């Protein structure tokens, strides 16, 4: 995290207002540039068109600079302060993400291939004894097609965008378990995997484990109810992987990024409230998992 001087809310609001003004100017310049480009190439001539393109590029640079500047100057301060209230030994890197090996080595049961990974808002810390790591992740699938003239085209499709959370409670878990959300199309058929007594859960999730008993041991009625509720609040497909060595991975394909400033038509208090709400969503998940006594292998402990 960059070492910034802590600013008061008034100073942060002032910076936000400056960035908002810069953003508006950038939008105005970009739109103007776009119009000049169009008119230039249609009526006014090549020179006018090129000037329009230059204006458009300048406008886009100003927009990017304003939003990135707002995030670095204001967002990081607010997010860091909010995280430090909740987590111990917190580290926040707004432009970093979880290591790519996490995605490739943790079999989450995704129904798609991943060829490229980007992300942001990496957080690492300790929450009530649980080590957590999380970030926004964007997983991309790359396909190559050949047109009728034999030319190869590369297409990137975003197949996952959202939160990836890793919790390490410091204890071995009782079993390996994987939950992956079924597609709406095939959910009703609920083919394959382990079936619990909850039809709603079976239709929503594909359950895989070494044994049916292990799956039922972890997926108590209360746990299943909570996972369904968490999935409803997440706003996207939920994937969970319980690893026997002690880590729980949760990936939510919500299409949203955490800790985003939005349109900048806001103030520091509203942003703080928004970010606190996003953090609380994560801590609620950790609190709920901690309560599930059957999650942990009582015969061994990773600590001492």
């Amino acid at each position, binding site marked *: 995290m960059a070492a910034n001087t802590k600013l008061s809310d008034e100073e942060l609001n002032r910076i936000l207002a400056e960035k908002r003004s810069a953003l508006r100017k950038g939008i105005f310049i970009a739109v103007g540039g776009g119009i000049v480009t169009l008119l230039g190439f249609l009526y006014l001539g090549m020179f006018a068109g090129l000037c329009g393109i230059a204006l458009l590029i300048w406008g886009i640079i100003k927009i990017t600079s304003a939003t990135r500047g707002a995030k670095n100057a204001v967002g990081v301060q607010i997010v860091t302060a909010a995280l430090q209230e909740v987590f111990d030994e917190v580290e926040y890197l707004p432009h970093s993400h979880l290591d790519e090996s996490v995605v490739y080595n943790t079999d989450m049961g995704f129904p798609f291939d991943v060829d490229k990974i980007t992300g942001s808002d990496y957080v690492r810390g300790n929450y009530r004894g649980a080590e957590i790591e999380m970030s926004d992740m964007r997983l991309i699938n790359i396909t190559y097609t050949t047109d009728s003239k034999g030319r190869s085209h590369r297409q990137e499709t975003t197949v996952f965008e959202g939160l990836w959370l890793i919790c390490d409670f410091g204890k071995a878990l009782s079993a390996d378990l994987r939950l992956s959300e079924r597609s709406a199309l095939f959910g009703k058929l609920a083919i394959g995997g382990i079936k*619990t*007594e909850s039809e709603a859960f079976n239709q929503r999730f594909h359950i895989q484990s070494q044994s049916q*008993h292990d799956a039922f*041991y972890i997926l*108590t009625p209360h746990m299943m109810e909570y996972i369904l509720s968490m999935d409803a609040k997440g706003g996207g497909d939920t994937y969970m992987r319980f690893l026997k060595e002690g880590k729980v991975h949760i990936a939510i394909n919500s299409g949203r990024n955490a800790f985003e400033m939005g349109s900048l038509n806001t103030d520091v208090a509203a942003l703080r409230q928004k970010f606190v709400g996003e953090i609380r969503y994560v801590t609620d998940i950790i609190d709920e998992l901690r309560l599930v006594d059957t999650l942990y292998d*009582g015969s061994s402990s990773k600590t001492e």
Partner: protein
Amino acid sequence: MEILWIVFILVAIVAIWAIGTVNGFKRKEIKVEEARSGIEVALTKRYDMLTKLMDTAKGYMTHEKDTMETVIKMRRGMSVDELQQASKQMDAVASSIQVTAEAYPELRSSEVFNQLQRGIWDAEEHLQAARRVYNANVSAYNTAIAMAPASLLAGGRQSMAFFEAEAHKREDVKISF
């Protein structure tokens, strides 16, 4: 000739369906049997933990130990009814242990005793899971033999009984420290 082929194909389709359906029933029966065995394992573990607990308590729990040894007979291949009966009897013993432990603070403060109580709680959680697995497989089997047109091939197969859990069971076993 063509009609013969059509008839042959239809008969083949029906035969494949019939074989698949009957094999499906058999697979579900095996899963129910496996799940019943899971309950047996969980109950045996609970029995062993209760026995160890009473050995630790020695003089405090002579009556409970006698009850366990004379009334509850765990063996392999018990039926669901026998397993349910054994489970009820263990609930009564566990409840009696709790009452006895409440009367002797020195017993309750013993680390070994507390560890064994935690072990009993864990055994109970495994029993709950085993019961749910059994009931889920029984439900799948009962549904399969009842649904048409598969029910035509069910023959003499009867619905299986579920493993019931008494409402008071969790209260009895929840150990307070």
